[in-house]
């Protein structure tokens, strides 16, 4: 294609995009002369140039459009939304022709007569309307072919030429666009521009401020300031700079080992220059994010017109720059999301008024820098996500069971909109809601190492927050070692490093085969890098000390267990060869300063290996506990799902957490048993045996005591937490201790003794037939302690009576109940415990009973045979055994 033509096409395409935006702005404020002048100039330029290039069809359309715009400008006709739509149609036609030109190099065939007729009719018809045209400042002189007289040049304008006055206006309005960027500006100049913009004179530019504003002079000859460079040239340049950076890195590495080398100084200079060069070349690739937004005002306007909504699009931070490669990749996702917000988010004016909101909805799009990332937010004040509908849809699609769905928080449910093929749009409009959407958006963003989060409140709106890296080319990376191999992890995802293992402050726990790290009262799911990458074990064998690299991807946080952390290094990301693409958890490769090749880990891919549910669980664990009641005891609890909603069981009672294959559970006459550690174990489910998993694996809580064990089957083990347990509601059905607020959610705490009794009954009362070791009395005002200790001691072969107060205990005494041992809590009320013990020692009925006290700290207490910790199960049983034995011996 002809150079001239291709340049014309590039320029025209850019200009048309501006015209789109300007027209929408102009429609909102028809008195804005500056905007109109800018539009006029752009269309005029198109017309002029195509006459010159011999493009009759394009010229015809542009000319008709220009005529109409001219009437607007001269106030000959009133601007109405219909007329703006007509103008936009004209612009669309121009785009169409330009696109055809771009493909074939010649104007495409087509009939513009209908459009032309409309444009002419609009220009003519309304021109006759009795809108008194205001007198121009001076009579416009018109040349023989309709050319305009230019005062500055003192001659008629040539076709395609733009008057200096118009140019001035254009520059002014272009600056207006940039005005919204947070660049420091002269307030006086801005005022003046505003005045100019609102001045009723047709030649607004005449009211311009004194030319002391140097910006007005700067771009007078834009052609000499900028050149067009093909993107390929920049890409090549970038690649070469990347190579230079690598070479520099290896040189630095070599010289580091030499003392007093004469290379040091020149190398330092080379290093600085390389860094600067890298910086500059990066800059050439940077483009304002506003470029990706250009189409949006027009899209919003069209949606408004099509579906009868009123939406204001607020753009903020258009000047924020990012790598053009990144920009290209986020353009479509952004457009899609804004379209979604307009189509699904913002309600119709009537609905909005009914909801007590302003008739016009707002979509606020903003971009800003934040610690090496760009944050883009899309916020609307619309209806918000319909949690119920998403929940139903997720269940309907089989993504989770109804019970699981009920247990998830709203925010967790909202994340399902990112699931593939997920769309809840009731009606599929021509704009969106076709089920290809948010999952693609999420993937596209994650591909470039970004992350997306959303926050939605029903009735108040939805905010999407996208975090994307500034550039993809050079990143700072942490070099890690696992099983003798080195890896690079992008520094932007790394939150902190924690040492674990022997002698370290932290250690790794295991819940349901998922390794976790308890870090500042948060439970962090762990991924063992060596395991997940299936690396061959290193020569040195299993390490005693590891490092956990805490990583954050979007809202998900996890720990990566590695052997060593070597260094941080600036690395140039190279894509993996095509035959390696799709390798999970790897995003590329790089050459380190020492010349070695290492693969780059993909934090998103790693997070995916954890499984969404586990990441969600970890996220939920971040939520601050809403309950911070004082006085109540802090307990370790296993949280699990079984039937409806989340349930909890005291961790102290649980011997193990297991996950067994379903087929291992055998059923016989209404019972379920499992071959477990060489014996048969009864399996129960809180909702009955029909609720057992039918395929895959069955999570179990195993409660074992001596040689008796039973398994409580649950749907899913969620987490282990430490919480203060206070029963806000007491149990109203068997098997339940009560309801407590755990992690801010009402959670049922199960009564283990109930299930124990059931298991024993099923087991043919084997336990019951065994000789009772002794009768125990437990006096403890904490219901939790009573309920926790009863099953434990029952299982150990004791008969137990538990009462809440000393008064209740004496009531039993009056009845004549005899006990072998009496246990009480020492910490809650030391005085009354001491009184109780003294009185016990003198009591004729209970004086001989062994007295055991519970205390949080190990110490001796007067009148008590033993003091044990409540959670020390083995210690308690040993103490009881010992106390009873000595008592019997004494007797």
């Amino acid at each position, binding site marked *: 294609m002809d150079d001239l033509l291709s340049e014309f096409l590039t320029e025209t395409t850019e200009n048309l995009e501006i015209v789109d935006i300007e027209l929408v702005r102009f429609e909102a404020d028809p008195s804005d002369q500056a905007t109109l002048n800018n539009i006029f100039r752009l269309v005029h330029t198109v017309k002029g140039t195509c006459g010159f290039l011999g493009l009759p069809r394009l010229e015809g359309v542009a000319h008709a459009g220009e005529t109409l715009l001219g009437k607007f400008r001269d106030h000959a006709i009133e601007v109405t939304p219909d007329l703006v739509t007509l103008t936009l149609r004209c612009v669309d036609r121009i785009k169409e022709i330009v696109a055809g030109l771009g493909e074939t190099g010649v104007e495409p065939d087509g009939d513009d007569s209908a459009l032309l007729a409309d444009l002419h009719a609009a220009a003519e018809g309304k021109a006759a309307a009795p809108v008194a045209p205001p007198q121009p400042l001076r009579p416009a002189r018109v040349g023989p072919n309709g050319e305009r007289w230019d005062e500055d040049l003192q001659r008629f304008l040539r076709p395609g030429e733009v008057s200096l006055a118009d140019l001035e206006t254009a520059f002014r309005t272009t600056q207006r666009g940039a005005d919204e960027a947070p660049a420091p500006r002269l307030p006086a100049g801005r005022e003046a521009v505003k005045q100019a913009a609102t001045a009723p004179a047709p030649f607004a530019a005449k009211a311009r401020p004194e030319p002391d504003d140097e910006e007005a002079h700067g771009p007078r000859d834009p052609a000499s300031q900028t050149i067009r460079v093909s993107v390929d040239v920049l890409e090549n340049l970038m690649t070469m700079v990347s190579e230079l950076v690598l070479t520099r890195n290896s040189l630095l590495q070599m010289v580091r080992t030499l003392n007093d080398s004469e290379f040091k100084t020149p190398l330092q200079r080379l290093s600085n220059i390389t860094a600067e060069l890298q910086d500059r070349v990066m800059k050439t690739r940077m483009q304002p994010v506003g470029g990706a937004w250009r189409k949006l005002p027009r899209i919003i306007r069209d949606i408004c017109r099509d579906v009868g909504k009123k939406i204001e699009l607020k753009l903020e931070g258009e000047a924020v720059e990012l790598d053009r490669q990144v920009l290209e990749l986020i353009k479509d996702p952004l457009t899609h999301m804004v379209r979604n917000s307009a189509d699904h988010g913002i309600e119709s004016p009537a609905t909005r008024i009914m909801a007590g909101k302003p008739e016009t909805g707002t979509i606020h799009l903003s971009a800003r820098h934040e610690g090496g990332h760009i944050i883009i937010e899309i916020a609307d004040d619309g209806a918000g996500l319909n949690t119920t509908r998403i929940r139903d849809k997720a269940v309907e699609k089989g993504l989770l069971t109804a019970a699981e769905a009920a247990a998830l928080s709203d925010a967790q449910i909202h994340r399902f909109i990112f699931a593939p093929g997920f769309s809840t749009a009731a009606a599929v409009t021509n704009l969106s809601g076709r089920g290809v959407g948010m999952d693609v958006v999420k993937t596209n963003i994650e591909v470039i190492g970004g992350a997306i989060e959303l926050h939605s409140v029903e009735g108040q709106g939805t905010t999407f927050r996208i975090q994307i890296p500034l550039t993809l080319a050079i990143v700072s990376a942490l070099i890690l070692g696992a099983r003798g*191999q080195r890896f690079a992890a992008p520094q932007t995802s790394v939150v902190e490093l924690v040492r674990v293992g022997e002698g370290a402050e932290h250690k790794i726990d295991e819940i349901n085969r998922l390794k976790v790290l308890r870090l500042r009262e948060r439970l962090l799911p762990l991924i063992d890098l060596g395991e997940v990458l*299936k690396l061959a074990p290193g020569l040195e064998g299993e390490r005693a000390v590891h490092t956990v690299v805490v990583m954050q991807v979007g809202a998900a946080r996890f720990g990566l267990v590695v052997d060593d952390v070597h260094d941080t290094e600036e690395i140039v990301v190279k894509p993996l060869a095509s*035959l*390696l693409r799709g390798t999970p*958890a790897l995003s590329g*490769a790089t050459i380190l300063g020492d010349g070695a*090749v290492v*693969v780059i880990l993909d934090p998103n891919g790693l997070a995916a290996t954890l499984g969404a549910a586990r990441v969600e669980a970890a996220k939920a664990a971040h939520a601050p506990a809403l309950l911070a009641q004082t006085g109540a005891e802090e307990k370790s609890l296993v949280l699990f799902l079984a039937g409806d909603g989340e349930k909890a069981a005291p961790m102290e009672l649980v011997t193990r957490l297991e996950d067994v294959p379903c087929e291992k559970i055998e059923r016989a006459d209404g019972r379920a048993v499992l071959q477990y550690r060489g014996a048969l174990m009864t399996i129960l489910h809180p909702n009955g045996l029909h609720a057992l998993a039918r395929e895959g694996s069955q999570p179990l809580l195993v409660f074992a005591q001596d040689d008796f064990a039973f398994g409580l089957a649950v749907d899913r083990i969620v987490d282990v937490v430490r919480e203060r347990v206070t029963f806000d509601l007491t149990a109203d059905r068997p098997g339940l201790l009560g309801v407590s607020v755990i992690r801010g959610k009402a959670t049922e705490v199960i009564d283990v003794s109930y299930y124990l009794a059931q298991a024993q009954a099923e087991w043919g009362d084997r336990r019951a037939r065994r000789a009772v070791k002794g009768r125990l009395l437990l006096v403890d005002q904490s219901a939790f302690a009573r309920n926790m200790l009863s099953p434990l001691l029952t299982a150990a072969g004791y008969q137990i009576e538990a009462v809440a107060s000393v008064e209740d205990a004496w009531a039993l005494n009056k009845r004549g109940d005899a006990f072998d041992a009496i246990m009480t809590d020492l910490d809650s009320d030391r005085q009354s415990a001491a009184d109780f013990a003294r009185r016990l020692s003198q009591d004729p009925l209970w004086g001989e009973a062994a007295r055991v006290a519970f205390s949080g700290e190990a110490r001796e207490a007067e009148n008590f045979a033993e003091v044990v910790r409540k959670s020390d199960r083995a210690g308690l049983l040993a103490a009881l055994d010992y106390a009873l034995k000595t008592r019997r011996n004494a007797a």
Partner: protein
Amino acid sequence: MSKQACDYVTFEIAGRMFGTDVSTVHDVFRLEALTPVPLARPDVAGLLNLRGRIVTAVDARRRLGLAPREQGYAGAMAIGVERGGESYGLVVDRVGDVLRLDGEQFEETPASLDEGWREVSRGIFRLKGELLVELDMDRMLDAPAAATAV
């Protein structure tokens, strides 16, 4: 079938002679410091730094489902090729001379050739007392047919 006379880089894989058109070969190099790629296709030997470029090394033996090399990759020879702007190295047992082979010696891949070999063969040259298989480099770098069929 006639074929223009042309220069061939010859090499040996598991005791068999192979050749590939010299114009398709970028370079021949010795493997040093190979970085394994976790979870990759089994025939990917690893990545290496060849004068600042990252080269993906493909193990010819593994690609053809043969017993792996006894002596490991250190010091092994590789045939460097470029494909789609990416650099690959085919790890072979031994690199031989560059031979000028005549079209007259060329024959279609015989049906008697083992299926694994046939898939990557463009045809054979009958040399004195020996057969030389012309290797289809593109096929070698693609996943084995059996693997993609799964």
